[in-house]
């Protein structure tokens, strides 16, 4: 039986097609301003990669912020439940999921069965999210994808005291004006994020193993900074951004089989 999970996030839309527990195809595109179309396109891309048509799919589960506006999906589940499910499938021993996405950061406590036990989310403020990093990358004129590597070279991270995106940006601009090294500023930004996520993580409270999902997990600088704060190593799956879509596909499989 073939199923699909589609995760329409604030930044990227992802799809995963599964057949009896095996991943057949995945896709990832920018969401842009029309999230409904983005979900559709992500699914179409994955279908093409798998050489399938929509009619071949038994059940499609949507997740992410754009889930409610889709009309081509059968069921809708929140990304909190889906990330827990996806992360559990790649790392069954994980009891804590740190998901840092485009506009949300979440820390999820997961049970042995992959179900959500508890979760904490950032407040309305976007500090610590992918969007926060994007703004900082723009202020520093460096590529988002390079931030992680760049920060690892820092020996004395700059102090970025604010976790508010707007205030932190002006702090970064001040550091630039003072002539602080880019690598130190970036490392400081990562520490600020780690500090904020740390506060959320201990509130859950966290249990090992800890797995990190979402786009920010691709930033090795944030991962290292978090590991230092939490005093534990983080598991980063091969495709951290796809964990929500994967979870949605697994839920589709469970429900289609039920």
């Amino acid at each position, binding site marked *: 039986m073939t199923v699909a999970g589609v995760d329409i996030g604030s930044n990227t839309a992802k799809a995963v097609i599964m057949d009896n527990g095996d991943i057949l195809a995945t896709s990832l595109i920018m969401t842009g301003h029309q999230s409904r179309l983005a979900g559709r396109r992500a699914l179409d891309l994955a279908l093409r990669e798998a050489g399938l048509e929509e009619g071949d799919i038994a059940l499609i589960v949507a997740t992410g912020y754009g889930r409610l506006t889709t009309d081509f999906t059968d069921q*809708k589940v*929140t990304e909190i439940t889906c990330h827990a499910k996806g992360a559990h499938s790649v790392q069954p021993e994980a009891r804590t999921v740190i998901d840092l996405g485009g506009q949300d950061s979440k820390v999820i406590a997961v049970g042995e069965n992959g179900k959500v036990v508890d979760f904490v989310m950032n407040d309305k403020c976007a500090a610590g999210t992918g969007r926060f990093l994007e703004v900082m990358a723009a202020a520093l004129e460096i590529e988002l994808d390079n931030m992680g590597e760049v920060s690892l070279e820092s020996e004395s991270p700059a102090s970025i005291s604010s976790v508010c995106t707007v205030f932190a940006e002006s702090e970064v601009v001040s550091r630039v004006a003072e002539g602080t090294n880019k690598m130190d500023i970036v490392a400081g930004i990562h520490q600020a994020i780690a500090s904020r996520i740390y506060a959320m993580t201990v509130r859950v409270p966290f249990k090992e193993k800890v797995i990190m999902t979402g786009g920010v997990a691709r930033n090795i600088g944030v991962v290292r900074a978090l590991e230092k704060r939490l005093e534990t190593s983080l598991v980063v799956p091969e495709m951290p951004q796809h964990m929500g879509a994967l979870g949605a596909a697994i839920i589709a499989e469970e429900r289609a089989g039920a």
Partner: protein
Amino acid sequence: MVAEEGRKLYLKIDATDRMKQLMTEYYIDAKGAEGTDRPICWITSGGPVEFLIAMDVIPIYPENHGAMCGASKMGVQLAEVAEGLGFSGDLCSYARLDIGSAITHGGPIGGLPRPDFLLCCNNICGTVQKWYEELARYFEVPMFLMDTPFIHKTTYEHATEYVRKQCLELVAFLEEQTGREFSLERFAEVAMLSVEGIELWKEVLKTAEHRPSPLTCFDAFIHMALIVTLRGTPEVVEYYRLLKGEMEKRIENGISAVPEEKHRLIWDNIPIWFEMRNLGQLFARNNTCLVADTYTTAWAIDIKIDDPLTSMADAYTGIYLNISIDLMFEKLLALIERFSADGVVMHSNRSCKPYSLGQYDLARMVTERTGKPVLMIEADMTDSRAYSEAQVRDRVEAFIESFP
């Protein structure tokens, strides 16, 4: 499983029409009294209104008006007026929009009638004192402050006496302001009607103990208006008798407020007035009924007829916002138990510090003691700029998905 789309998620309460009529009459009457010899007093929501009713003073509640402005989605524009004058955006949004409305006569009813004097009771917060001092300066009217000592563990005789004496001072203040004489007989009559109204209100809320519940806390938030503003009048007694009858009839006929009630939750903090309808539907769509709350029960106070002054002093001192977290926890636990709730939704209200401070501790205490989960949502009672609909929807749905 989410309830099918297109089903009726909200069941209208028939009595609502009567309540709207009473509230409309109240505001029309109050506005008509402006500039006449009928005195108008602005009073805080936790203030002892019985004294005003007994002296034929028209009570006006800026907080009730704040809720109306919020529900009409006019909170932000009024708050901006106050912010433009230099009031901090971190100040309580009721205070900000009340100040904005006082200056511009803005809001759904064109502002409140001008007060002749003010009655401020600090049992709900410390902000009200500064807020009412602003009003007193702006309107150039006198203000009476009733100071209720915070209860850490228990009430003390001297504290009760301190508040009881202030009740007597309030009487003298009112006599001076109105030029009328206070009648203990009339006061006892009002207190009796107040008790009757409060008892009926408690019974209305109690009907939600039934599974499935005939009402949600979103209904209670709307129908509390009269117990807040006009308790001590016969109309209130008559109204809650009507409402109680309707709820009992729903139970008899097997009618529930939420079409398919599966989960039952308790709400903590002031409602998010501008988002009530959406939130009510969101929970209903997810087969969840908010069966009780810590807010509307704040007006379910005990007044004893044989000694109204002393019991009022105790009742007004002991309200939910004037007690320690340990005591709040006891009340919350009792609600969870009494209403067979599966968990708690806490509104971390940017405006209301005394209500929101300590919620994380309360949440932890609830889960430790009962094993029941608590959901925290960040918002503001009337300032929609502090609210993100998509985030809250996500949290609510994920919370409900995590139920067995």
